[in-house]
C-alpha cells in the first residue's frame, strides 16, 4: 500500500497578520519567482500551502 503521508494537519493561508511575516513570505515568493524559468509559471499564487506533521506523522 502506498503511504504518502500520515498524521498531519493541512491549511492554506492567503494573508498574514504580522507585517514581518508578510515580508518573509514575500521574500520567499521573490526568490521562487526569480528561480522559476518557465514563463507561465513565474507568478506564485497567493495561497501558501501549509502541512503540519504530527510528532509521529
Amino acid at each position, binding site marked *: *500500500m*502506498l*503511504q*504518502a*503521508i*500520515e*498524521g*498531519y*494537519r*493541512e*491549511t*492554506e*493561508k492567503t494573508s*498574514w*497578520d*504580522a507585517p*514581518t*511575516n508578510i515580508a*518573509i*513570505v514575500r*521574500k*520567499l*515568493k521573490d*526568490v*521562487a*519567482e526569480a*528561480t*522559476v*524559468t*518557465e514563463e*507561465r*509559471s*513565474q*507568478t*506564485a*499564487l497567493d*495561497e*501558501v*500551502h*501549509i*502541512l*503540519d*506533521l*504530527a*510528532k509521529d*506523522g
Partner: protein
Amino acid sequence: MMIKISLSFLGNRFLLRQTELSHVLKRACSFSFTRNYNAGNISHRSPVNLATPSRRVTSRRTSTALRRLYVQGDDTLLECSEAAIEDCKDVLVVPEFISAEEGELLLQEISRTLRGKRYLYNHWDGVGSPLRMRVDQFTCRVAGY
C-alpha cells in the same frame, strides 16, 4: 511539530496538488522546520523519506509541477535531498534562506491558524486507488481540516 510550507505557481496549482498527494510529496516540499520545545527555539530538519527516489516523475507536466522553491535550513538537509534533486532536476534548492528567527515568527502565526484543527491519520489506507485517495484528500481540504 513539523511545519512544511510550499508555494504554488500560476498554471501549475492543480498539478502541484496532485504531486503533493503522490509519493513524491515528502521530497518535493518547499520548506520545513520543527520546534525544539526543550530549547525553546526552532531548528531545521529534513522531511522524512526525503531522498526516496520517484520513478513516476517522468512526464514533462509533472516535472514542471515540481519546479518550485526548495528551501533548506542546513547542510544535513542538503545531503538528504541530494538523491532526490538528482532524480528530479526541477526541484530548486535555496540554502539558508529563512533564519531561525523568521521561521519562529511564521510558526507562531501558523500555529494560530491550525489551532483547533485535528490531525488526520493516514488518509491513504483502505481508501482504494491513488486516484480515489486524491479525490478524498481534496474533499478534506475543502471541508476545512
